[in-house]
């Protein structure tokens, strides 16, 4: 099944994916309308800092963008007693109209990527974006300026990881010897 992955070598922590996700999942699908109408818009993915430290060389401190991993089997689906959270063609989705806001899914998610805002919000793999806009399938992948976000199977993403990164991020000065 096609899922979304982040190459931490390329993620610069710019949050463009979060912004694009929030816009994609808004009513108006337009940033300016969201701001002017004070419409609430929430991203279903987030940029984290590995190890939680300020940016530094090595894996600790690098940013990474994460959302739902569409686990199989999915603990959030097991936990949902209203039938809102469900599996469809491998994808984990939440039917908002059935969601009671009991947060069983929040408790069950081992990645902490389900947001509790009236109903459970999570990555839905942008179900209607192609038909609506005729543009790239996923808002976050489309918005990523460095190509860190990749859609595909994990096998396909592994091939991306095997390729060297052709550019490098500015490195902090070396500590004095």
């Amino acid at each position: 099944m096609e899922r979304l992955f982040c190459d931490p070598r390329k993620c610069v922590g710019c949050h463009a994916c979060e912004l694009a996700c929030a816009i994609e999942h808004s009513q108006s699908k337009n940033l300016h309308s969201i701001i002017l109408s004070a419409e609430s818009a929430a991203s279903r993915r987030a940029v984290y800092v590995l190890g939680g430290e300020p940016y530094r060389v090595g894996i600790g401190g690098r940013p990474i963008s994460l959302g739902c991993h569409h686990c199989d089997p999915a603990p959030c689906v097991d936990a949902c007693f209203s039938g809102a959270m469900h599996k469809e063609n491998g994808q984990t989705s939440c039917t908002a109209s059935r969601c009671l806001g009991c947060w069983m899914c929040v408790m069950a998610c081992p990645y902490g990527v389900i947001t509790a805002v009236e109903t459970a919000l999570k990555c839905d793999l942008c179900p209607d974006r192609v038909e609506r806009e005729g543009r790239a399938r996923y808002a976050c992948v489309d918005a990523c300026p460095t190509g860190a976000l990749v859609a595909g199977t994990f096998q396909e993403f592994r091939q991306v990881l095997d390729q060297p990164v052709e550019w490098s991020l500015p490195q902090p000065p070396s500590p004095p010897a």
Partner: protein
Amino acid sequence: MRYVIAGASAAGVSAAETLRQRDPAAEIVVISDEEFIYSKPMLSYYLAGHQDLESLLYRPRDFFESQGITAIYDRGVAVDVVKGCVELEHGPPVPYDKLLLATGASPRFPSAEGIRRDGIFGLRRISDADGILTRLSGVKEAVVLGAGLVGLKAAAGLLERGVRVKILVESRQVLSQMLDASSARFFQELFEQHGVPIVTRAAPAAILGNGRIEGVQIASGEVFPCQLVVVGKGVDPNLGLVSGSAIKVDYGVLVDGYLGTSVENVYAAGDVAQAMDIVRGEPWINSLWPCAVEQGRVAALNMAGERLPYKGSTRMNSVQFFGLPVISAGLAVLTPGPLGGRSGEHDTSIEDQPSATVYRKIFLKDDTIVGFVVIGDIERAGLLKVLMEKRVNVSAIQDRLLGPKLDFGFLLPFIADNRERFEEPEMQELIETLGV
């Protein structure tokens, strides 16, 4: 292969679906004494008037038919493990090649004079909720016996229906199987603020009234007038089907690491099954929806010939009262349970209360999380749960566990350092992504 599943709630439905997905040709028979599949945890929403019957049906009414599953609407009364059949109350015996016991649990009623009278309800079946609702017009005051999850949800539901509710608790606090005293006080105060008095150390002695219910008398002699009694003191496994058979039972039906019972070709899942508890390290029943669904699936795969170990369950609850959410899991409490509690289940607890309605507490033993409670701000509580379930030594990150900055990005390098405990493919993929 003929699979028979006794019970059609969380575990039974999950097992039936799993078997059907795995083997489109298998003969699957489900025995159920209820005519449709509905969500028992949603009954309190139905009682409160927030949900109608249709919204409780988490599978369509024609689910069994559409899946090619034979439904027998009857009640299993005995298992003949020699002949390999389930005897029914009304119909002819149902032969099986593989049997799943998914008979669930029933409300635990306290021992009080007249407790089994008409007009005293658990909240476990749609008939309980409908029974309460049909009586409501004559009810001004209700007494809820017990302040477990269902007791409190029933009390909140009745309050919304305009009933004056009192809660009588035998122990010193509400939610004693889910919260420690310092966490329980939030909800005790919240119910009192909403006009629901909670009377602690009040063991019911008798239900008063001739014909109609007039009140509840407690052991001290005090009387609480009411026209309706709801019992919410937890549940006991439904063992009627296995009693007298060779299937080994302790508190529930004992199962091995593959959810098989002591008798070949008979499995058990859900609230009737006493399976390994990851945190306690001994067989226990966590009568919870997520555990039942998972056990139903794992049992079904093992019935179908796979050899899939069950990783064990943990207690976990998520609920919201009057807008205040709480998630709690593991040994957040030292109160003795039905199987007898033990002291020394945790050696340390850490807590933080950043605001009046946000509280976090984590219980640790030997530097591993054995339980936690988060109130108010519940997002990312699953991170604590996965650390608890994986029995990982958290001493290196203990000072960060309570903070708002605990997120998966922070944890990922730590998880990579403990990768052998996080065997899920999605976890392994993420670790591989880090290239470390």
